[in-house]
């Protein structure tokens, strides 16, 4: 191994590489102070709402279609689970709306997790943990919905949740050991392949003019 320091002339010239001028201390401090005065909770709420509200709207639509399709056969006081039980062709529409929401969410989660895995393999910075938190909100909405029927979707959402929780808790500067554990977990359950299989419909499975 070459442990010799560079020649003193090279060391002197290297010191001129991107030689820093004096820092604009006050200007930077003012920007930091202004940024810290921002109401970050509002920003965080808006970011979450941007993802969660459309998802909630889709779920609400699924519920509404389930109630509408159940018609007179189900009393208004019956549970939401009963509402989402397919009673006839129209009742299946509610399930399809839920499936559409779940598929879209799993597509987004799959892209994010693939980015995370690729960044970890290349030893680069992970994609923003904020995105993991946003996906976690959607994931929990879908998991807690009574409209969930497909056990494979439930298993996928539960596995996605475990990984998103770990990613959301990673420190900002990242810890390689933690990142490796997450990517190992991702590979151990073959999650990306299962997500791809779930979100890529076979031609026969495509809904025909229901939604």
């Amino acid at each position, binding site marked *: 191994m070459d442990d*010799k320091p560079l020649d003193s002339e*090279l060391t002197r010239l290297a010191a001129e590489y991107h030689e820093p001028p004096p820092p604009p201390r006050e200007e930077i401090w003012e920007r930091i102070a202004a940024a810290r005065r921002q109401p970050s909770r509002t920003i965080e709420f808006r970011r979450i709402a941007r993802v969660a509200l459309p998802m909630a709207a889709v779920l609400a639509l699924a519920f509404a279609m389930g109630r509408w399709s159940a018609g007179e056969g189900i009393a208004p006081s019956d549970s939401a689970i009963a509402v989402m039980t397919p009673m006839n062709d129209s009742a299946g529409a509610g399930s399809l709306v839920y499936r559409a929401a779940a598929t879209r969410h799993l597509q987004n989660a799959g892209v994010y997790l693939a980015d995370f895995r690729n960044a970890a393999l290349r030893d680069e910075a992970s994609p923003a943990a904020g995105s993991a938190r946003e996906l976690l909100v959607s994931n929990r909405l879908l998991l807690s919905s009574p409209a969930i029927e497909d056990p494979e979707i439930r298993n996928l959402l539960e596995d996605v949740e475990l990984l998103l929780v770990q990613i959301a808790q990673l420190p900002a500067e990242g810890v390689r050991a933690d990142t490796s554990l997450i990517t190992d977990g991702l590979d151990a359950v073959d999650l990306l392949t299962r997500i791809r299989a779930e979100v890529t419909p076979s031609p026969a499975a495509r809904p025909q003019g229901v939604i």
Partner: protein
Amino acid sequence: MTDSYLIARVLAGDAAAERSMYDAHVDRVWRLVYRIVGDADQAADCVQETFIRAFSRLSGFRGESTLGTWIGSIAISTALNAVRSLKRRGARVVSIDDAPEPGVDPQGGDPDLKQRLHAAIDALPKGYRTVFLMHDVEGYTHEEIGAALSIASGTSKAQLSRARARLRSALGAFAPES
């Protein structure tokens, strides 16, 4: 004022303590991020983001390294992300293939050792360049570099050796004898 006292004051919401913490570390952070990004506006953005992240995550600081090293690790992560964004936009792409051949001056005049050295530093892989700049230019120890980059100090030493070897190789006969 000790690190632990300063941290306690900042966590208690003492604005003067925040400013003290900033004043204590801003010069080193600025030098480090400027060496990496090479642009005053980008460096100012990185320093700003470094301290915002440091203040917001201070409650999670477990004292496994010094406060300065911990802030330095945030600064490096921020600066490397900034460089990556610049590269994505094509603003600062330097490849080893773009560096002039050793001993050949494309201008046909006197070779410029400084220019060639800087081009060779630009062409170093990200990890080598960061360790070289931190150790040989900014004077960090391998232990500090290891803590800041989450690598073993032995890895830091190995990367520095390889960085120096690549620089010597890139400069070829042009480099002065050591």
